[in-house]
C-alpha cells in the first residue's frame, strides 16, 4: 500500500468519524418518534392581558413521571384524599351502581343560580354545570341595571377512566391508572370551561401540538 492509499484510508476514516460527530443523537432519536396519545391543556384568558397557556404532554410520559413525584398528597402516582368525608359513602358501590345502570340522566338540579346535570351515555360520564352570576350595575337615570354572566363547565369522562381512578383504595385516587385507561381511549374531549374571563379546554388526541 503506498502513501496515497494510506492517505485515502485515513481520510475515509476521518470523514466517517466526523459524520458520526455531526449526525449523532437526533437522527437516532427521530427514528424513535411515537404517535401515542397526548393530553392537551389550553387556557385562554379574556381579560386585558389576554394570556394564553398551552400544555401538551404525552400520556405515556406522564404515566412514567407521576410515580416518581412524591409531593404533598401525591405519592407514587396516587392522590391521597385526606378529609373527603367519604366514610359514610361507599364510592365503589356508587360507581358500580352507575356503571351497571342504563344510560340516562342521574342528577338534574335547576335553580336561578345553577344548573347541574350528571348523566351517563355510551360509556361516558357527563357532568354539565352552568352557573349564572347576576351583576348589579350602578344606579343610573333609568334606575339600577342588571346583567347576568354565565359560566359553563362541561366534563366528559370515560367510565373506564373513572373506574381506574377509584381502583386504588378508599382514600386514594389512582391517577396513573386513570392515565393508562385514558390512553386506551381514542381522541376525546375531556373538559370545557367557558366563562366571561377564561376558557379552559382539555382534550386528548394523537397530535403532538395543540390546535
Amino acid at each position, binding site marked *: 500500500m503506498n502513501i496515497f492509499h494510506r492517505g485515502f484510508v485515513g481520510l475515509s476514516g476521518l470523514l466517517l468519524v*466526523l459524520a458520526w460527530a455531526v449526525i449523532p443523537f437526533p437522527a437516532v432519536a427521530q427514528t424513535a*418518534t411515537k404517535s401515542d396519545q397526548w393530553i392537551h391543556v389550553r387556557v385562554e384568558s379574556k381579560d386585558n392581558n389576554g394570556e*394564553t397557556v398551552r400544555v401538551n404532554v404525552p400520556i405515556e410520559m406522564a404515566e412514567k413521571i407521576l410515580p416518581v413525584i412524591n409531593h404533598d398528597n401525591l405519592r407514587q402516582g396516587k392522590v391521597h384524599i385526606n378529609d373527603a368525608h367519604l366514610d359514610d359513602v361507599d364510592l365503589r358501590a356508587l360507581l358500580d351502581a352507575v356503571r351497571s345502570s342504563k344510560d340516562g340522566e342521574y342528577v338534574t338540579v335547576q335553580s336561578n343560580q345553577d344548573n347541574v346535570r350528571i348523566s351517563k351515555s355510551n360509556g361516558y360520564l357527563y357532568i354539565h354545570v352552568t352557573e349564572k352570576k347576576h351583576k348589579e350595575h350602578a344606579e343610573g337615570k333609568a334606575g339600577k341595571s342588571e346583567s347576568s354572566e354565565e359560566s359553563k363547565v362541561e366534563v366528559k369522562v370515560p367510565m373506564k377512566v373513572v373506574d381506574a381512578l377509584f381502583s386504588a383504595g378508599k382514600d386514594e385516587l389512582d391517577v396513573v391508572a386513570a392515565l393508562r385507561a385514558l390512553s386506551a381511549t381514542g381522541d376525546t374531549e375531556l373538559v370545557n370551561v367557558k366563562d366571561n374571563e377564561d376558557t379552559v379546554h382539555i382534550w386528548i388526541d394523537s397530535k403532538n401540538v395543540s390546535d
Partner: protein
Amino acid sequence: MLFLAKAALGLGATVALAGAYVFHEGVIRVDVDENSVGGSHVHVWLPATAVPVGLRVVPSRNLEHAAAQARPYLPVLRELSKELRKYPNADLVDVRNPGEHVRVSVHDGKIYVDAVCDTQDIHVSVPVETLGDVADRLESIAPGV
C-alpha cells in the same frame, strides 16, 4: 517526508476523534440578551460532553450539597430525560402574554427553554441525554435516592 505525512495523519485523526467525542452529544447553549442600552449579552456554547466529564472530575464532596438539594427532583429528571428521548420534536409548554412569551419544547433531541419579554431574551438549549447524565451522577453522590 513520509514520516511527516504519517505524523500529520495521526495528529489529524486524533484531533478529529477527540472533536467527534466532545461534540457527539451536542452543544449546550445559553443566550441571554438584555434589550436595553448598555444591556449585557451573554452567549455560552459548551460541548454537552463537558458536563458529565466535569461532574466526574469534580470531587464528590464538592457536589454533595448540590446533590442533596436536588435529591427530590433527581428521579423526575432521570425519567424525564428517558422519556423525552422518545419524543424528539414536541412543543410542551407555551405561555403567551402581551410582551412575554415562554416556550419549552423539544427538537432533535434537545430541550429548548425560550423566554422572551420586553426587557430580555433568554434562550437555553440542552441535549436531553445530558439531563440523564447529570441526574445519574448526582444520584450516585446523593445517598438514599
